[in-house]
């Protein structure tokens, strides 16, 4: 439905076909610049200290998540009230929490859960949201109407209501997937709205007009040209929402619809530590700091990637 003559807002002069050897231009346009865009980005990234620092941090966090036993010999679920809110001691560098669990061990073991919840939810949300939003923004018309109204419905649903019901349906299965599912189900809407806006903006830019003029198909336009050019706000929202999902897991645990209590996570530790905030703020500080550092690494990485993909913003 979107061809070169009916593209909305397009009133520019298009050179008649016989004046320009179309096939030649198309060939040039297709292979060389596309591959050089990613290569270019990689070259830029390698020289960006922000990318290197965040990359190293993320590698470290992933190693902690994969092999927590390398960093501590203790059992994160061994908690005894004798140690409740005890100060740091030999072998317990961060002290003990309210239930008398070793904070350091729990921070280490919580990495895996929190990182997987955050990453899985973010990836799912970004994928789902971007696809739905991009399709709505690009095609417009009734597709946009249907998808946008679906977004409206989901935006209005209280996540707590959905969480209780969804988690109830999978009561027996205690993996993190149901939490991720709930988050994705209720989270995709905001990314979809952002992606839709960005795509609507990008599809009117000159390069799209140009590639349409050069005979590129709408789908190809969307995925090769428009989406990469709309990625900036999506990456920003995506990397930022990583934190939101880790924190949301805390809120859900707090409301009793979170992960099973034997699963160690930063989120549930943060919500537990809230009661000790006045007397022992450090118990809250450590898991929050771990969360903040993780989020910071991903935000820095996101910024670096976004800058590399969008050469214009580097020039200043």
């Amino acid at each position, binding site marked *: 439905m979107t061809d070169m003559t009916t593209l909305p807002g397009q009133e520019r002069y298009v050179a008649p076909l016989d004046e320009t050897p179309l096939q030649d231009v198309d060939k040039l346009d297709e292979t060389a610049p596309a591959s050089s865009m990613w290569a270019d980005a990689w070259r830029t990234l390698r020289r960006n200290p922000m990318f290197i620092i965040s990359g190293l941090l993320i590698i470290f966090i992933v190693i902690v998540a994969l092999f927590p036993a390398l960093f501590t010999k203790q*059992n994160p*679920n*061994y*908690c*005894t*009230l*004798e140690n*409740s*809110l005890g100060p740091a001691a030999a072998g317990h560098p961060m002290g003990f929490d*309210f*239930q*008398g669990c070793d904070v350091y061990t729990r921070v280490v073991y919580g990495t895996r859960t929190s990182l997987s919840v955050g990453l899985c939810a973010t990836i799912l949300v970004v994928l789902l949201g971007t696809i739905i939003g991009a399709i709505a923004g690009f095609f417009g018309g009734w597709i946009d109407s249907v998808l946008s109204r679906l977004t409206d419905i989901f935006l209005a649903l209280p996540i707590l209501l959905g969480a*209780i019901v969804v*988690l*109830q349906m999978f009561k027996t299965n205690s993996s993190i997937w149901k939490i991720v599912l709930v988050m994705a189900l209720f989270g995709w809407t905001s990314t979809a709205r952002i992606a839709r806006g960005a795509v609507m903006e990008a599809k009117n830019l000159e390069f799209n007009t140009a590639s349409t003029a050069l005979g590129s198909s709408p789908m190809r336009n969307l995925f090769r040209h428009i989406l990469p050019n709309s990625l900036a706000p999506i990456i920003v929202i995506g990397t930022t929402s990583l934190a939101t999902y880790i924190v949301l897991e805390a809120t859900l645990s707090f*409301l*009793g*619809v979170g992960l*099973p*209590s*034997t699963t160690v996570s930063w989120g549930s530790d943060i919500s*537990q530590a*809230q*009661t*000790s*905030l*006045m*007397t022992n703020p450090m118990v809250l500080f450590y898991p929050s700091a771990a969360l903040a550092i993780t989020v910071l690494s991903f935000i820095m990485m996101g910024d670096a990637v976004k800058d590399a993909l969008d050469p214009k913003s580097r020039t200043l």
Partner: protein
Amino acid sequence: MKNKALTVAAVVCAAAMMLSGCGSSSSSSDSNIITAYNSEPQKNLIPSNINETGGGKPADLLFARLVSFDAKGNPSNEIADSITPNGDATQYTIKIKDWKFANGQTVKAENFTKAWSYAANAKNAMICSSFFNTIAGYDDLQKTSGLKGTEQLSGLKVVDDKTFTVTLSQPDSVFPLKVGYTAFAPLPDSFFKDAASAKAFGQNPKDGCTGPYVFDHWDHNKEIAMLKNADYNGSRKAQNDGVTFKVYTSDTAAYADVQAGNLDVMEAVPAAQTKTFEKDAKVQAYNKAGSVIQTFTIPASLEHFQTNTEEGQLRRQAVSMAIDRSAITDKVLSGTGTPTLDFTSPMTPGYSKSLKGNEVLKYNKAKAKELWAKADAISKFSGKLTFSYNADGGHESIYKAIVNSINNTLGSEVAATNPMPTFNEFRDAVTNRKIAGAFRTGWQPDYPSAENYLFQIFDSKAADGNGSNDGDYKNAEFDALLAKAYATTDTDEANKLYQQSEEILLKELPAFPVYNANAYGVASKNVKSGFAMNWQNLPTYEKMTKK
């Protein structure tokens, strides 16, 4: 120099007061109206339709009953002139004093009999209807169809304006205490005119007020206000001009308001403050032994945990002795609870610290291990004992600690928590007997008697959905002791029987006492005197004054 500093301070204070829109705090310190922490009543203000504290706290102050209790729980006649049982406690003759409703009408015997019949009649859908189930004729009013709502309990007979008799379907020596519960309050003639007048009463019960206060207004989700009842002649005479119950979204917000002097009293302390509230210079604190008992129950017939098999009893004792109760009350509750030694509370008549067999309620790591191993020798338990509770009630830290304590003693994979998001879901699972593991139970007494703690939770007549015996515990010996206690009108004798029955419970552990919640709370610095808590863990509102 000093003066200058004072001026600056005064200006800053004035600015801060202007900013904070000081209207509320100035009015609350000038007047002698006590503002109190509350939640929105679940239903309305008809006394027999109230079974939770949101409505219960206001109702207790608005409606006088036949008997009232002092702060310690000692009963004395209020509207009643006398309550006389027959020999086996199956019939009572009740004479009443001269008493007036707030609308001027005299309280007659009929106002009691009609109110009780209204409450018992299923057509009227009163939440507290089962309180009347020992009165003769109760069963006739439980039909699901054909009732008009005006049928009367056949066991209630009006003799004259000041006298009525109550015939019970079974002996009940605690009946004179039961009638002190709010559901037994008399209702005025205007209440019974028609369905609409009853409904209006639920929203504005001013006409029927007989207690130390008279209803003033109810702003839903905001506040219920009441003023001192000048005509009240009972033992709970108000020392202030009124009480306004304010609806709070959380105890944290309320505590902050008490600190700031915007709220006068609350009978709770948020978890984040339990460690510090007694040292908090911004509030007055109260913390003494209370009447609420917190327990958990393992269904009597749960496999490996049966109350009537040797293996089950060993396991129950092992679990109980694996719990470090004093560590829980010290660390988790910061001293706002007391480890239990029986199945009632230190505020209950007949409470004993020296019941035979109460060592199973004491932490004993070695013994617990030994008993568990013995049980395993009979039949190996390889599953997990789950602990269910509702996550919206603030029980999480207690159950985490219980589970940790058990796992640290009996092996790391024995117990696990199983939170349920809402009270609705939790109660549904309990009443439908869907929980194959331990679940949270607890009891706040309706009237100060050991009977209230024992019969409702452990008697076979209260099992299978007929009472609060949610573990379906059945023991004929226990039932017989309670029946004997019901038939004796000698309180001391009855208390001895209750203690004997508790010794059976200690052996079989149908439920596991964990701690008695203290009566604890805070009042603002505006309150000058009278701040204390009563046997129901509630503030003595009528005694408080700001002058």
